[in-house]
């Protein structure tokens, strides 16, 4: 039996040299048959397995992961949690996701360091302030929090910003106080541990090599590097490799795979409280609990599976940082890394049944999948368990491209690198 985490447990273990801690999850060999196989042991796959077990009572579930759990984008993002979308089809979903975040630590008995420090989007023209107001009003109509901040308020609250010499002046901002950050690895680990405790088998170092179907096209199982596993339902949650895995089942998707870089400076004493983003540089920044400034900007812009970015975007990101936070000039970049993003053609995600009976798709998270983790697992578990979309994720269906109901928050059309 695994121990419940608590301060008392920590004290107890301290007294015996921490020798009593058990593995956070088991390391089982795959069974021959599961009710559901989730492909992908990242945040979304693990959350899906957890909610399948907890909300739908389906516990005979395997999560198969080709590497180590949490090794994909859940462990390499800039940790931002928010629900500040404009289009109802998106905001409804992210609103639910944020509600799940609040209280998730207690539910999972794992400290995710969820920190609702506020997400502030800066607007550079009066027109942009109005657009932010449109979005903020949509958020409020959904019951979520949103405020419009004046430049004076922004200057007072965010001393790192230099508003006096900005190329693009700051005319206002959209503050979303319930937004913030969370410890990214912890989310994967917390869901893994909680799912494992409900009986879910998490099978690492197990790559799916084929998706098997019967003559009628129904899913019958998956072939893996650890052998064949029979199942009637396969859920794909393999952001970054969605196109490849879907292709095993003959699915072609409205997805292009792109590269996004992220950056962190050396640790500093607290200097920035909020998550701050600004559109002119497509830039976002926050300070981690360890003290590093964590930031990023646009996609590198070309299709890539490398997770290795290049200098033009490194330079652009540094420029964007210097444009409004010129104090950052002497601070030093400690590390930059890349993640592989499955970018959809409208910039919004897909949680959907597919034309293949028994195959369910969760993907296309673009560069915003982290904050969606609980909501994604919640909706996807429902979609798999009931074979139909969850109402809050209903607009995220795959057929929206055919019906002309794209969810294009950026308004840039079928050009994934611009979303």
């Amino acid at each position, binding site marked *: 039996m695994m121990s419940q985490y608590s301060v008392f447990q920590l004290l107890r273990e301290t007294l015996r040299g921490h020798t009593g801690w058990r593995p956070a999850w088991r390391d089982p060999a795959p069974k021959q048959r599961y009710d559901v196989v989730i492909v992908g042991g990242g945040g979304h796959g693990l959350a899906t397995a957890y909610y399948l077990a907890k909300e739908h009572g389906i516990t005979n579930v395997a999560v198969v992961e080709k590497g180590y759990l949490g090794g994909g984008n859940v462990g390499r993002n800039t940790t931002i949690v928010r629900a500040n979308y404009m289009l109802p089809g998106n905001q409804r979903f992210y609103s639910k996701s944020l509600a799940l975040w609040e209280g998730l630590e207690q539910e999972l008995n794992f400290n995710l360091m969820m920190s609702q420090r506020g997400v502030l989007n800066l607007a550079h023209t009066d027109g942009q302030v109005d657009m932010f107001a449109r979005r903020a009003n949509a958020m409020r109509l959904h019951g979520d929090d949103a405020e419009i901040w004046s430049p004076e308020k922004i200057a007072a609250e965010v001393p790192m910003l230099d508003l006096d010499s900005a190329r693009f002046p700051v005319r206002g901002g959209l503050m979303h106080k319930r937004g913030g950050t969370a410890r990214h690895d912890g989310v994967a680990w917390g869901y893994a541990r909680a799912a494992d405790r409900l009986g879910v088998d998490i099978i690492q170092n197990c790559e799916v090599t084929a998706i098997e179907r019967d003559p009628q096209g129904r899913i019958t199982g998956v072939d893996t590097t650890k052998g064949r596993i029979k199942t009637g339902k396969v859920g794909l949650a393999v952001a970054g490799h969605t196109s490849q895995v879907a292709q095993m089942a003959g699915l072609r998707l409205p997805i*292009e*795979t792109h590269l996004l870089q992220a950056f962190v400076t050396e640790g500093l004493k607290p200097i920035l409280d909020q998550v701050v983003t600004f559109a002119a540089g497509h830039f976002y920044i926050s300070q981690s609990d360890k003290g590093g400034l964590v930031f990023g900007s646009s996609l590198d812009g070309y*299709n890539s599976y*490398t997770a*290795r970015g290049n200098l*033009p975007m490194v330079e652009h990101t540094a420029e964007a940082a210097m444009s409004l936070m010129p104090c950052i000039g002497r601070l030093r970049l400690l590390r930059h890394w890349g993640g592989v993003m499955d970018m959809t053609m409208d910039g919004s995600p897909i949680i959907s049944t597919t034309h293949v009976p028994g195959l369910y798709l969760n993907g296309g998270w673009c560069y915003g999948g982290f904050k969606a983790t609980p909501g994604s697992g919640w909706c996807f578990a429902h979609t798999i368990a009931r074979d139909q979309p969850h109402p809050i994720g209903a607009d995220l269906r795959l057929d929206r491209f055919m019906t002309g109901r794209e969810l294009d928050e950026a308004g840039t059309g079928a050009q994934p690198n611009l979303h």
Partner: protein
Amino acid sequence: MRIPCPVCGARPSEEFTYRGDARPVRPPMDSSDQGAWVDYLFFRDDERGRIKEQWQHTGGCRAWIVVDRDTATHAVHGSELARDAAEGGQA
């Protein structure tokens, strides 16, 4: 990355603007088959490996080019003008 412009020679990638997969074939102008248009505009093979893709040398000679590049390694295997590729495709 250095993108080999067939006109200007190799230049850093930021001189170029990326469009995407060059291979989907646009349905004939007079086609009204929505499925074919949806497929052309939205759906992609998205290979991990060599693909042909369209870039424009917007920071240089403004040529639209087709680059043969590997999405798994970023290795570039060649390029040609988009108009030559278009003619080649029709032949």
